Structures are given as C-alpha cells and as structure tokens.
C-alpha cells in the first residue's frame, strides 16, 4: 500500500530543485577531484624527480602565476554556477500551489494545510502528504528555537526562525516516501526530529486530505469508549487535540487521525500498539528530554487508551 520508501539522499533527486542542487554538487565534485589529482600528480613528479638542479626563477614565477590564475578562474566559475543554481531554485511559484505551514518545535513538526475556508484546514504532525508534479509552498516558522527543514531528496535546507516566517517551494516528480529531518541543532532530541513526506498521485492525495478533514471517529466498543473517557479526563487534554471531542489544545501534536500515521514521536518509534503504550507510560525512556510527561496508569487503563488511540484512523 502506498508509495515505497526512498533512501534519504541528496544525490537521488526526486524534484526539480533537488535535481539542480545535485547537478551543482556533481560539477563541484568532479572539478575538485580533477584539481586534486592534478596537484597530487605535480607533487609526485617533484618528489620522484632525479634532477637536483634548482628550478630557474622564471619557471617558478610562471607556475605560481598559472596556479593562482587557475584557482581564481575555477572559483569564479563556481560562483557563477552557484548563482545560476540559486536563482533557479529560488524562482517564484505559479498559482495553484498547495500551501502548507510547518512549525518546528522541540522535537516534532506541526503541519497545517492552509485553505481559505478555515473549516477545511487540516492540522497533523510529522507526516506530510503531497501530490506528485504540483508545486508545494511551505511556510516555515518555529515556536521555540531555530530548526531547519530538510528533505534531501526534494530540496535543500531551510531554517525555521522563531518569530519570523520563511517560505520556499518544492515539487516531487515521482511518488515515494521521502524522509527528512531537522538540520539545525535544536537541543537534546535534535537527532530524533524526523519527518516523512509522502508524494502520491493527485487522486490519492485528495482522498487522504478528505479523510484528514473529518473529525475523529466515535469510539465503537466498550474498551475504546473507556479509552476516550481516560483521554478526556486526564493530562492528555492539556496539550493534544482530537477534533470532534472537547480536547483542543495545540501545544502537542494533533491526534485526530494519529492511527493513520506511520510513526510516533517524530520518527522515533513505529506506530504499533506496544509502542503507543510504552510511549504513553514513560515517554522519557524512549526519547529523553521530550516535552511529554509520564502517565502513571494501570495496565487495563493503558490498554483501553491505546485501543482508543489505535482506532483514530
């Protein structure tokens, strides 16, 4: 089901910007490799030279001038090609783009699909779905410290600055699940601040978006009803939203459709019943320093709560 996971690499571009950046990288790689080989060859020839007579000054001046000239020319060439790539990557986007606001916080990504009609906006976390072949505009902000949004297969890095919104756009040319991560050190769990971008066909994307717009499913069995009751009467509601219930806080990830996501805690754990229980009971064990407090509850209550969370497709 769904597109396959693609290895996270800036050298396997899946979009126009990433292709430009990858091209620039390869040009620089081959030029620098050639320069390195030439320099090594010259040094080797000097070391192995039998003749011990001193080099005439005229020849020495000539080679130094050539070396400096070649370095300046190559660096200037890099400057020009970087400028051209920078312009191409930063070009403005046509109308009709999907707009997504991503807010970084320690240590997860709040994702909001922007729509002129407020009731059609969708809030989710850590997993972004986008249609293939359409430009996607990202508005990036931070709630605490500087983070950096980086999905190497699709684009370069872009910092998320507190109190300042930046924007850029990207596009995926082929379907796949692309892993991204925070690329600016942001505290204890910087390493576990991952996100997944799922690029899929327009029809699949629309189906996903429509499902995300729905409020959470009502619990259908005794155990999930008990789970919902526990959720609504405990600490959970201080931070989390489940649309369709009274839980509406925005400090933590939106859990309305948490079971539709593949991972927990920004890519730290896979989304299984066992991991939900482990996470809820003692989040500090799985991801020390994260903002979620532990929840001392009986095994029965924990099973009910995890059954409820698992039902939120």
């Amino acid at each position, binding site marked *: 089901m769904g597109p396959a996971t693609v290895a996270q690499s800036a050298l396997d571009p899946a979009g126009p910007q990433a292709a430009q950046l990858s091209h620039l990288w390869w040009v620089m790689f081959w030029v620098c490799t050639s320069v390195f080989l030439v320099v090594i060859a010259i040094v080797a020839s000097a070391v192995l030279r039998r003749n011990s007579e001193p080099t005439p000054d005229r020849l020495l001046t000539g080679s130094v001038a050539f070396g400096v000239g070649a370095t300046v020319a190559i660096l200037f060439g890099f400057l020009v090609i970087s400028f051209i790539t920078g312009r191409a990557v930063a070009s403005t986007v046509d109308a009709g783009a999907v707009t997504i606001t991503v807010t970084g916080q320690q240590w997860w990504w709040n994702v909001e699909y922007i729509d002129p009609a407020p009731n059609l906006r969708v809030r989710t976390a850590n997993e972004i779905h986008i249609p293939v072949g359409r430009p996607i505009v990202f508005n990036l902000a931070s*709630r*605490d410290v500087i983070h950096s949004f980086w999905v190497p297969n699709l684009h370069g890095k872009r910092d998320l600055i507190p109190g300042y919104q930046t924007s850029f756009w990207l596009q995926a040319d082929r379907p796949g699940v692309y892993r991204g991560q925070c690329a600016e050190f942001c505290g204890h769990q910087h390493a576990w601040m991952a996100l997944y971008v799922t690029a899929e066909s327009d029809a699949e994307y629309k189906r996903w978006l429509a499902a995300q717009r729905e409020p959470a499913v009502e619990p259908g069995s005794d155990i999930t009803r008990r789970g919902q009751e526990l959720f609504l009467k405990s600490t959970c509601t*201080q931070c989390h939203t489940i649309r369709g219930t009274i839980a509406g806080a925005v*400090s933590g990830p939106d859990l309305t459709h948490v079971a539709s996501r593949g991972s927990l805690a920004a890519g730290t754990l896979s989304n299984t019943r066992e991991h939900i229980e482990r996470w809820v009971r003692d989040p500090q064990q799985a991801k020390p320093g994260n903002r979620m*407090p532990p929840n*001392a509850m009986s095994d029965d209550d924990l099973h009910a709560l995890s059954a409820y969370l698992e039902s939120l497709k």
Partner: protein
Amino acid sequence: MKVVMAILAVSVLVACEREKREFHQSGIVPQTTPVTDLYPGGGTPHAAERSKYEGNAYALSQGKMLFSAYNCTGCHANGGGGMGPALMDDQWIYGYEPDQVYKSILEGRPNGMPTFRGKIPDEQLGEIAAYVRSLSGQAPKAAAPGRDDHMSGKPAESSTEKRSPKISALPPSAVQ
C-alpha cells in the same frame, strides 16, 4: 611548581558542575482529598522541597514554556494580569511561598482560578510555581529566564527587581 599549577588547573576544571536536568518524572500522583492548609505567615511544611525548582534554570525555563503552553497567559497575560490578578507585583492573595503557589494552581481559587488537579503532573506544577515566583523576582537571578518568546513589555525575569511580597488579605477587586 609547574606540576602543582597543572594539578590545580585540572582540579578547577573538574570542580565545574553541570546543572542537572531532571527528565524522569513521576507523572500524576494520586492525591488525597484537598485539605485546606493555607499558612498564615511563616513557612510551610513542603516549602523546601518545592523550592528546589527555583535555583534550577532548566526547571524555570520549562515553567515559563508551560505557563504559555497551558494558557495561564489567557487570564494572567505575561504576568501583568488581565482577567486574573497580576503575578509580577508584590501582592499575593493566596500566599507567595512556593508551596502556596503550588497549591493555588493545584486546587484552584475562588473567583475564577480553575483547579488543575489531575491535569498537570506534580513536577510541572512545581516548575510553573517557581516560574510564577520568578515573575516578581523571587527566584535567583542567575537561574531565572533571560529572554522572552513573546513581545517584551517588561524586563526578562532575570533582570526583574526582587519585590518584597505582601499578603493582601482580599482580592484587590473586593477592596475597592
């Protein structure tokens, strides 16, 4: 002599102790029925335990983060007050000791302050209480937060003058 100096230099480095960050918390501890233990003047039994958060920069900045995350700002603004009383002045209606502030958050108070019993874990309550006290300069300056994430209308907690707290027996609205 050089050897002695080297040993001294190393021992000075070793003496630097990094402030501890407590990640492992106990969560919600079931509490007994609320019993009024407001303390007229004097200290409180748990004051020492609660005040451990006040000298810890991490705990205070967590308290500051939670103060806005849990929407304390909805009524108390960023300390200046609004629907609820100001927290950065020297007037305290229900006591200023760490334990009293903790109890006010835990139990709620008449005329609007809701109870957060069962909603906020014990450690976080301690952190928020310590931060609330730092708003009027009651926490050590070296540990109090030095910057704001919101627009600053007042100096940060670390540069707030320490006010000498007073118990105002009645809410200011009742006195007028």
